[in-house]
């Protein structure tokens, strides 16, 4: 029995490494871990046993497992205690959403859409560019090296004490992954569009509201022909109530 299993396990392991190689790049683990540590020191994060954290982690894991590339990664979903709506990822499977993002979502499909978009950044390999030489404060400008500045569609945005660079082309790529993930997980992919259209300009997720992205999303969803109704759950309502309390 063991002799039969061994080649299979070796094969699985090889497949696992190949999949991981597509989404985790050289130096990404070290950079992301260092930044995650810094975020943990600076920002008020919900504890891992917290009800909201548990819900977001379980939902994030469920979404990430729907695509092959996501299955080989170790994901870290965290919730920041902040009432403004925001979500971002920093590489090596680290994804952050704020209390405000949970409050902003009107149903489970919408918070799934926000998470799926951030998972999409990871799966699209947006953290693969090597870091330029920086001084000791490199982490405060972490997002500078994530995204190309050649497209002319890039803007900087502060998140806490970090600077995030928003690149429309990369956001569109993350959206494509998100639509695939949402459909595979059985969620209404149209929730992406609902979130994007409703975002206020001053919020941290305002980059989702870019009209070019909204047009691209409309085309993407039309092609996807997704007509599922938005999903909700008692658990989501409980979590939302707790965050709002």
């Amino acid at each position, binding site marked *: 029995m063991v002799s039969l299993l061994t080649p299979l396990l070796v094969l699985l392991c090889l497949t696992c490494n190949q999949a991981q190689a597509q989404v985790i790049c050289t130096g990404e683990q070290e950079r992301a871990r260092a930044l995650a540590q810094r975020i943990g*020191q*600076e920002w*008020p994060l919900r504890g891992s046993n917290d009800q909201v954290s548990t819900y977001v982690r379980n939902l994030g894991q469920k979404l990430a497992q729907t695509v092959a590339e996501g299955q080989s990664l170790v994901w870290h979903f965290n919730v920041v*205690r*902040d*009432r403004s709506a925001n979500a971002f990822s920093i590489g090596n499977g680290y994804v952050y959403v704020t209390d405000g993002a949970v409050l902003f979502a009107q149903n489970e499909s919408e918070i799934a859409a926000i998470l799926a978009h951030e998972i999409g950044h990871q799966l699209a390999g947006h953290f693969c560019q090597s870091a330029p030489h920086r001084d000791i*404060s490199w982490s405060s400008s972490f997002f500078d090296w994530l995204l190309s500045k050649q497209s002319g569609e890039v803007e900087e945005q502060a*998140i*806490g*004490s970090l600077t995030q660079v928003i690149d429309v082309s990369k956001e569109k790529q993350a959206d494509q992954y998100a639509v695939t993930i949402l459909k595979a997980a059985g969620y209404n992919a149209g929730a992406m569009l609902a979130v994007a259209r409703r975002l206020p300009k001053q919020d941290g997720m305002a980059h989702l509201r870019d009209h070019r992205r909204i047009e691209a999303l409309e085309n993407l969803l039309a092609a996807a022909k997704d007509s599922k109704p938005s999903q909700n759950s008692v658990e989501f309502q409980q979590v939302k109530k707790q965050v709002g309390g």
Partner: protein
Amino acid sequence: MWSNKKSKVLCVALGCSLVAGCATTEENQQMFGAAGGAMLGCLTGTLISRNAKGCAAGALAGAAVGWGAVKVSQYNATQVRSATEDKRVYGLTKPPKSTLVKINKGVAAPENVKPGAQVSVVTDYSLLVPSGMAGADVTQSWVLKKDGKVLANLPPQRVYRQAGGWTADATIPIPSNAKPGTYVVETKVRAGTSYDVNQAVFVVES
């Protein structure tokens, strides 16, 4: 089943306790607490029944509110680190775009208290503000819990704070009728949209 008079006494005593709970708070302000609840209960009981028995009934009702009447009896906050020192100690990076608050630690002392004594809840937090700002309004509030149930929401303290590290000390009187057991005091510090929560534990002895 309660008589109408008893119901009236209890309702008005509760009302007074709630009014006391909603009073504007200042730093270092002495507050009523359970004793205040009893006093107000006595007064309102007298007003309703127009005799001394009413006072006694009202006082009993006010005091019986217990945790519901408890407030922070004393509140002191001291800046213990400048914004620069905070960066050095906690590795805070450049100024954020929006205000950030982070609790570094929080404890309740003593860990074991007798009913009628008081417990001190000490919270150390860091306040980080955007460039161009010297400080921000900070709201600190406390929730008392036992066995997962909320016993009391203590009136919050709202004060302007300079950026940097702060230690806030809130004294909470333990009602004389507090049941023995483990209690949790949940401290929340909020500035702008950012907030942090810490749970400290103390034990009321029999």
